[in-house]
């Protein structure tokens, strides 16, 4: 897609403008959290728990305090009793009373140098009473299971979904009459699927820097996806008024969900308050694996039925999620996974149920896709399985069942724009679907396809647009750009609304003191929701500017129009005023400086509460739907069973691409992350201990094993979106494991029940196929 010659492209929106901060990044001058230093700053190190589950009986920090360079030590005794959490407030700033996973921070030291802090941490004595550990959700539900959160009933719950014992939440969604529907099915497929824990591995490990001023007010810089969630989490856990904490962000070295909720910001703030000096705490890569968060392992039981023509009649999905030690975003992930378990198809009878269980592992939480890749892995394979039984081509099978424009989603959400069919057409054509790839000797090769839908939206957001004295524009949204380019896309929306060049718009860094609230860079939401706020705020600036111009030119507002370059003109005339003149008047003569603001919370009621039984969905109002279709060409080595993706095509309906190149990269980057998840990325536990918390043992895709990904942008404008845009951040990842599994199924026969699809898992299937032949 060549944006330069697209007639629908505006002056700013629709152009592949390079990202605003690229120059500092290509010259090495971008500053991430570990690049920040404050005068008199201390360095922190963390002591992790050696047990997965234990009571803390006592601490002795005397030796550590006496060690060279040590200025302060904190333990659970030093932090207030407050608890934080997005859904259930179950987590202290630092372990208090109990430890709930191996590696959980139990104490921290601030010292003059990092080496001194690391040496001193080992001098802290903690006496524990070890308790039996819960290492799987199944074990957590056993009648005599040890209980992790003994006071669970008393915790504050933002969203209460039947928490009891180790059951963190449960959800059931239903539509139609599934039990009765099976009788009418000509084909029924059923299977159990498991997916593994995936680590985010943002290239930048998590870190924070906190400093308290003379008034006792704390300034906190951290690697995050939301300065506001950081503020909320720190203040809840440390029982501070939110006005006493200012949360900021330097450049962020990637975040795929892991930097959304708190990591070590609360304990860093506690250390800064204890020592009265600035404290920086940056995790090692190993700690980043061990104590932040990861993608939930799922166990999925799924059953799907269709009639003899391949029309889907019923789907049942039951999931069991490992929550880890703290609820974090898990209830949301489970609810969302269930909502997406039917996929983008018309299925009249559906039931989805889930249980989320606390275990003594690090917390699982938000990770790009938010439960969708896991259920899609099961769902999309069952679509292929039915197609095989009915001798239908997988694409034909899908066409017969596609969610059509005008159709609603499972349990009621409205779907406005729907470019799914166009996505399917696009990948079918681009990948030459009908042509079977030639396998090299010693390999098996096949194509696979999967579809996906994903929601962008949710919760509060805002924007403030100011016209500066000279007519240039300052945009402030509070949305953290984690590298994906939201600052640029939002500047483009602002520039387009005001018809000024993008270079005339500056974007403020998120700051809880000065930025309007933004829930966060998550849920594929910034372009869609914050973009709406930006368009609204810029529109307000324009309205005010028009008012000034009308007075200045002495014509009714209705006679004015906005022209390129930021000029307001009398229709049909050459008479116009530049923004500079208007803003000058507003600043110095009349009316006051021009400031526009707009806030919103996604407010379409999107599901029928009666169909989300009692403990249903965590998000009553959720968002708008993007769609995707992905085709992969997979080659499997017959000697070892190792699968490689040789080429991929991914079409995504993003409503309107504000910046097409940035959308391409979301599709491509999402694809490769999904490929790693599908083929080899796996966090492995040896009993209670994470066995591969390093990049030596946990592998992510490299340039050499990543295929060329053909990204295809489909634009079916979303009526509520800014210039028709909707989200693109996660959807590119969702269908990837399923598409790869479907290619493997086409090459080797059968269904892939377990991720990742390692050589070890595929080799027996090759041997079986050899024997069969």
């Amino acid at each position, binding site marked *: 897609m060549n944006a330069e010659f697209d007639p629908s492209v505006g002056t700013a929106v629709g152009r592949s403008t390079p990202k605003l901060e690229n120059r500092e990044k290509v010259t090495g001058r971008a500053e991430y959290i570990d690049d920040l230093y404050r005068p008199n700053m201390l360095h922190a190190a963390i002591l992790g728990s050696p047990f997965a589950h234990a009571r803390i009986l006592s601490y002795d920090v005397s030796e550590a305090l006496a060690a060279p360079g040590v200025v302060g030590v904190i333990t659970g005794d030093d932090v207030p009793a407050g608890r934080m959490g997005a859904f259930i407030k179950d987590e202290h700033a630092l372990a208090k009373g109990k430890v709930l996973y191996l590696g959980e921070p139990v104490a921290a030291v601030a010292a003059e140098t990092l080496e001194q802090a690391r040496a001193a941490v080992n001098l802290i004595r903690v006496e524990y009473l070890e308790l039996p550990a819960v290492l799987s959700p199944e074990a957590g539900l056993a009648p005599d299971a040890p209980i992790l959160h003994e006071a669970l009933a008393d915790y504050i719950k933002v969203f209460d979904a039947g928490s009891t014992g180790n059951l963190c939440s449960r959800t059931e969604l239903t539509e139609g009459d599934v039990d009765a529907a099976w009788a009418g099915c000509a084909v029924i497929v059923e299977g159990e699927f498991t997916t593994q824990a995936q680590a985010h591995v943002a290239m930048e490990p998590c870190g924070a820097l906190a400093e308290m001023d003379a008034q006792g007010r704390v300034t906190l810089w951290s690697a995050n996806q939301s300065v506001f969630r950081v503020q909320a989490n720190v203040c809840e856990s440390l029982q501070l008024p939110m006005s006493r904490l200012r949360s900021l962000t330097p450049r962020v070295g990637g975040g795929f969900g892991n930097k959304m909720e708190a990591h070590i910001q609360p304990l860093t703030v506690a250390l800064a308050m204890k020592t009265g000096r600035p404290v920086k705490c940056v995790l090692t890569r190993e700690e980043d694996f061990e104590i932040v968060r990861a993608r939930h392992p799922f166990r999925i039981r799924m059953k799907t039925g269709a009639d003899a023509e391949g029309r889907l009649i019923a789907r049942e999905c039951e999931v069991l999620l490992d929550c880890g030690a703290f609820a974090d975003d898990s209830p949301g992930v489970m609810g969302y996974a269930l909502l997406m378990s039917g996929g983008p198809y018309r299925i009249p009878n559906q039931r989805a149920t889930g249980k989320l269980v606390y275990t003594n592992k690090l917390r699982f939480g938000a990770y790009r896709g938010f439960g969708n890749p896991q259920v899609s892995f099961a769902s999309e394979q069952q679509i292929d399985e039915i197609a095989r039984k009915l001798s239908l081509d997988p694409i034909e099978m899908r066409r017969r069942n596609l969610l059509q424009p005008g159709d609603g989603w499972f349990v009621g959400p409205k779907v406005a724009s729907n470019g799914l069919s166009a996505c399917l057409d696009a990948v079918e054509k681009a990948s030459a679907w009908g042509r079977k790839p030639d396998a090299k000797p010693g390999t098996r090769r096949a194509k696979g396809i999967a579809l996906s839908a994903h929601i962008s939206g949710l919760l509060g957001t805002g924007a403030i647009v100011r016209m500066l004295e000279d007519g240039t524009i300052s945009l402030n949204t509070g949305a953290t750009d984690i590298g994906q380019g939201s600052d640029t896309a939002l500047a483009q929306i602002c520039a387009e609304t005001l018809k000024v060049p993008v270079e005339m718009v500056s974007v403020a860094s998120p700051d809880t003191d000065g930025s309007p609230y933004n829930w966060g860079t998550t849920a594929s939401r910034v372009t869609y929701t914050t973009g709406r706020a930006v368009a609204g705020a810029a529109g307000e600036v324009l309205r005010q500017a028009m008012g000034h111009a009308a007075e200045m030119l002495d014509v009714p507002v209705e006679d004015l129009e906005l022209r390129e370059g930021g000029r307001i003109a009398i229709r049909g005339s050459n008479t116009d005023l530049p923004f500079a003149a208007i803003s000058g008047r507003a600043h110095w003569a009349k009316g006051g400086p021009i400031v526009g603001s707009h806030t919103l919370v996604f407010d379409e009621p999107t599901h029928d509460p009666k169909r989300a039984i009692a403990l249903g969905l965590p998000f009553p109002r959720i968002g708008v739907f993007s769609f995707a279709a992905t085709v992969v060409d997979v080659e499997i080595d017959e000697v*070892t069973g190792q699968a490689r993706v040789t080429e991929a095509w991914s079409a995504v309906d993003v409503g309107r691409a504000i910046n097409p190149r940035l959308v391409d990269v979301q599709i491509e980057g999402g694809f490769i992350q999904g490929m790693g998840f599908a083929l080899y990325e796996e966090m492995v536990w040896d009993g209670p201990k994470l066995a591969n918390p390093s990049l030596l043992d946990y592998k992510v895709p*490299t340039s*050499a094993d990543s295929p060329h990904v053909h990204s295809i942008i489909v634009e079916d404008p979303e009526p509520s979106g800014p210039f028709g845009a909707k989200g693109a951040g996660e959807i590119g990842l969702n269908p990837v494991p399923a598409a790869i599994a479907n290619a493997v199924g086409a090459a080797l026969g059968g269904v892939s029940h377990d991720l990742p699809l390692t*050589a070890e898992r595929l080799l027996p299937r090759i041997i079986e196929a050899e024997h069969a032949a």
Partner: protein
Amino acid sequence: MSFVLSPRTVEEAVGLLAELPDALPMSGGASLVAMKNARLIEASHFVSLAGIASLHGITATDTGLRIGGMTRHAQLAACDLLTGDLSMLRQAAGQIANRVVRNMGTIGGAVGNADPAADYLAVLACGDAHVELTGTEGSRLVAMTDYVTDWYETLREPGEIVTAIHLPAARPVPSVYRKLCRVPGDYATASVACASDGDGVRVAVGACGHGPIRSREAEAALRGNLRDPVAIAAFGAALADLADPVDDVRGTSEFRLRLIPRMVAAAISDLEGKR
């Protein structure tokens, strides 16, 4: 606190190692410094071998090749002298880690460290290489097939350094290095080095035990039967019988045992194709 010392001669280096009981030799540093960063090792000094001229370079000798211990993986991956039955060494060197780390790591360091999953050991065992170990008492040669004695344990005594690898002169017959790894540059899940040898083959398996696995008896039994799938299967099974693989994040022991005969057969078939 490890101080770096930079001797200019081998004698000076082994003298320092003898004098300083808590010192460790450091060649490229790729593994050693990574271990230091992870706080897995403590040493009073790192005796850097980088500045010792005699450890650099690949030279032809009366019997074949002498590869200096400080020869970097990148140099071996591009070395024109590694042809015929030594081309497997060139292939293996080119698959270690990545381009940048190959500029750092050395063959002496890799052999000294003797990581069972590292790429050289199988190739050197297959290539009938000898390890030149030098201490204060002088140098000695140890056959690669005998060199590794246990997990990360070798015949190298503390205070000795790997000064060179000796290989017989290249013969104009094909050789191949096959490696299964999760992503390019990862340590091997399993690897096989295979070189033509008249009407037979020399084969060594890597990453499936504490050291490379080679069986001259099994090679003798296979001689003359390279087109017989049953004989090849029996050969692979014999090597698998000698294996003692770990269970780790790269694969289970069972998987590796299953891989050995398949990778061995594939390597032999690669050679047939190259003849």
